[in-house]
């Protein structure tokens, strides 16, 4: 019941904000209302700890003869850190909104809080059916938000393309369900058949932009800092949780090395681009691809706890960085906590990140460690570039207190989660991997001011024009599409034209001949 209470608290707060915006435009306590509702939800999520594992089942889908599964929610040691990270992120977004130019904006807060509610449902989804429903809700919300904000035709197109990519992820999830049904089993997270396990991984990978490597959006700077961060991080968390739910046994397959290679490419590309991005908002898509690739690799190494570590680092560490829009020396120093969280060193969030529970594939690890070092270097670079930000001292007194609390909360929680609260806490982890990644990071930080190619350049993007092979593939697909289009058009013209009835009669003769050849 606690799960439902926290989700309801968020949705009721969002609804209240919307109603207040419509009925009382001059209402002065909207921010306090938003913050109170979210803090209450944060406290309730914290309370989950006392009763884990928790579950809640919605009224079952009927008729039972057709639906073997019904939507439900459940929280365990892997779902809780995601849920807690998401609510913490929302609280932080509300606290830091005090310094934004568009403050107050109760509509934006309502959307952000509702997104958090949907995110909570995603990370606590008890089965693929629930996850598919929540993913769809998230995708539609994102589509509407993106279209509403779209300044031009190109942005609208990108929003639709991003939606269709995500929808393809949902289809893969449902295909896994069909594969499981063909094997005579209802699909759940406990007993996933091997073929379905790979499809689940592909579904999460596709939505995260890792398998295959793609970027749904060109640039993120146009999105508001709060809403953009919320949209992207909730969306990532909702996909990452699936990686933690796939049973290790179902991922042992001949295609596992191929998936590891693809993940490694995505991790290196994401990390490299993130490290060289001109600023953190421009680099945000690469941050997500880089860390999501590491999470996918963890899943392929048979380490669900590791995937959660990378996932919550993506939300909490990324959240702290993306919400930091003002300069304050102590806050800048505090952001180093994020570097530690990403380091895989003992008692960090990602300490469990490189646990290899499979019989092989360890030789892939160095590639991922290089990618991890790129990501850490990029993080430190973006965190330590205060000159591009306005000073906090220019803000009103109350904002000067509230804003650091938002950033500090995210940093504090990632520090605490390294020690307590979930299955991967207080872990020694793989010390050599952590040390290697940290040393590489230090090396890169030393080298950055000394070598031009490591320095930020104007970001370029994954586009068909810069990847000739991909370009060729897309062109071939487009030719096929147009050919099929012409074919269907020709058939339609024939059947709907003057001779259409004759053609139809001819078909009928074939139909009758076909039937009469067979016994009933």
């Amino acid at each position, binding site marked *: 019941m606690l799960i439902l209470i926290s989700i309801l608290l968020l949705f009721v707060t969002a609804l209240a904000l919307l109603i207040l915006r419509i009925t009382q435009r001059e209402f002065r306590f909207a921010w306090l209302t938003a913050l109170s509702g979210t803090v209450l939800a944060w406290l309730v999520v914290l309370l989950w700890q006392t009763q884990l594992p928790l579950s809640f089942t919605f*009224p*079952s*889908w*009927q*008729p039972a*003869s*057709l*639906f*073997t599964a019904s*939507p439900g929610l459940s929280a365990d040691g892997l779902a809780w850190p995601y849920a807690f990270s998401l609510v913490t992120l929302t609280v932080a977004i509300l606290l830091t909104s005090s310094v934004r130019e568009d403050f107050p904006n109760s509509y934006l807060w309502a959307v952000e809080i509702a997104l958090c509610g949907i995110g909570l449902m995603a990370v606590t989804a008890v089965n693929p*059916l629930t996850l*598919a*429903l929540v*993913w*769809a*809700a998230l995708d*539609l919300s994102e589509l509407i938000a993106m*279209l*509403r904000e*779209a*300044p*031009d*035709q190109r942005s*609208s*197109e990108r*929003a*639709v393309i991003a*939606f*269709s990519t995500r*929808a393809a992820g*949902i*289809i893969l999830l*449902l*295909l896994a*369900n*069909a*594969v499981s*049904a*063909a094997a*005579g089993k209802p699909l759940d997270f406990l007993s996933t058949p091997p073929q379905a396990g790979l499809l689940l991984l592909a579904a999460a990978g596709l939505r995260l932009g890792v398998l295959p490597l793609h970027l749904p959006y060109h640039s993120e700077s146009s999105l508001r800092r709060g809403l953009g961060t919320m949209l992207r991080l909730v969306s990532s968390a909702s996909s990452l949780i699936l990686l933690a739910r796939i049973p290790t046994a179902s991922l042992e397959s001949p295609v596992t090395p191929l998936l590891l290679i693809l993940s490694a490419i995505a991790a290196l590309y994401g990390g490299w681009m993130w490290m060289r991005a001109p600023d953190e908002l421009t680099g945000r898509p690469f941050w997500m691809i880089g860390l999501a690739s590491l999470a996918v690799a963890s899943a392929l190494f048979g380490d669900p706890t590791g995937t959660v570590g990378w996932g919550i680092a993506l939300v909490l560490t990324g959240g702290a960085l993306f919400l930091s829009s003002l300069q304050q020396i102590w806050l800048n120093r505090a952001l180093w906590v994020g570097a530690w969280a990403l380091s895989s060193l003992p008692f960090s969030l990602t300490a469990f990140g490189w646990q290899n529970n499979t019989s092989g594939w360890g030789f892939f690890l160095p590639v991922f460690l290089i990618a991890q070092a790129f990501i850490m270097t990029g993080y430190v670079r973006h965190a330590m570039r205060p000159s591009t930000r306005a000073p906090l001292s220019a803000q009103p007194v109350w904002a000067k207190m509230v804003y650091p609390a938002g950033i500090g909360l995210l940093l504090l929680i990632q520090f605490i989660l390294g020690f307590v609260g979930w299955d991967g806490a207080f872990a020694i982890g793989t010390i050599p991997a952590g040390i290697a990644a940290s040393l590489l990071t230090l090396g890169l930080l030393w080298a950055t001011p000394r070598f031009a190619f490591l320095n930020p350049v104007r970001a370029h993007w994954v586009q068909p024009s810069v990847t000739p092979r991909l370009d060729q593939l897309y062109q071939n697909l487009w030719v096929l599409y147009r050919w*099929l*289009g012409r074919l*269907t*058009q020709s058939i*339609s013209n024939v*059947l*709907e034209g003057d001779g*259409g*009835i004759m*053609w*139809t009669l001819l*078909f*009928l003769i074939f*139909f*009758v001949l076909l*039937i*009469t050849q*067979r*016994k*009933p």
Partner: protein
Amino acid sequence: MSAPILWILLPILIGSFTLLLLRERTVAVIGGGTSLVLAGIALIVPIDEALRIGPLSLKIASSASILGRSFLLPPADAPLLVIIFGMCALWFFGAEAAGVALRLIPLGLIITALLVASIAVQPFLYAALLIELAVMAAVPLLSPSDQKPGRGVIRFLIYQTLAMPFLLFAGWLLAGVEASPGDLTLTIQSTSMLGLGFAFLLAIFPLYTWIPQLLEESSPYVVGFLLWLLPTIASIFGMSFLDRYAWLRTSPEVLAGLRGIGLLMLLSGGLWAAFQRKLERLMAYTAIAETGFILLALSLTTAGSLDLFFLLIIPRGLGLAVWALALSILKKENASLEFSSAQGLARAYPLASAALVFAVLSTAGFPLLAGFPPRLALWQGLAGASFGAAILFLIGLLGLLVGAVRMMAVLVMQKEETRWSLKENWIQRGMLGIGITGLFLLGIFPQIMRPFLENLPLMFQHLGR
């Protein structure tokens, strides 16, 4: 009072009366109200049982004789009447928003009554004649008297009329099969005739060319109403054959044929939907794919296949209603619905555009929307029976999804800096809002349809048990 008089004769009389009225709103209220009341009576008042209200006792007899024919609407048919008239109420109330109330409601009530009569008539073979009468009544609906009938209307009439002799002939042959079950030649002939009859009636590939043509020529709302009602009743009529003849419902070849044709409908509908450049034609192909889903549900041999068939009916009706209404609104404001002319319409008509997108996504089985639960169950059932069929099913769904995405891209593609506005009027907003809410409600809580669907399989003596 008897059930056939209440649910057949009364709608015909009220429909005829509304032909005389001139105000859209009055006709919409009368038509929608009548349908709602008839649905309510079917829901509340039991057939063939005395209902005591104080000193009064009310009993609706199940049968009546009209023009020498017996019409029987047993208690098991009551849930179907609730669904049919309930959905008609939705269509008729929406007719005002679509601006076609004066045309749709009078003839719509008559067509509905005739199709209900086709379910009730004994012997059941006479249903073919009543369906033909309904088809003829649809002609003035599709082509107003001041307009020359288009190619689509003529083809619709030809193909639907061709169904009747095949079905009657099949019925005559089937009587022979019953008398001599060992006669293989007769069995094959009767199966062929039956197959041809239903191929015409259900507009099986490639006999559906009239659907896109009709949607281009006539009001999308009117055509949508027919595309919802005719295949639903024709399918129930087809199920009567399966129910009556044991060899037909147990024949693996017949079931395989149904599956093959269902997949063909879904694949061709999906594939063609993916390449359309007109919003009306896209609707046509999604409606064609919907018929494929119905046939696929019937082809499953599992215990729940009948449940699945009925589970498809309400989302299908609602999806088509939302589609048709949104399309009518856009067509009224924008003469051409070619993709090139429809660019950026979402900025001016966000609700109608959203309704179009949600309706086609629902047909494609997108989660959260009404079409999702039945498609999920159907996909699982197919995967259990044949994994190859499940993959083809996926391809069909992908085609529909591509169609939806292309349409969405066109609708949101504003040519220049255009601000969002809301040009739909209040009635249109209300009806579209109800429709969209319904699509989401049925997608998230499909169990709310259960009270209406639970006893529907009992309509069939053998299939439902």
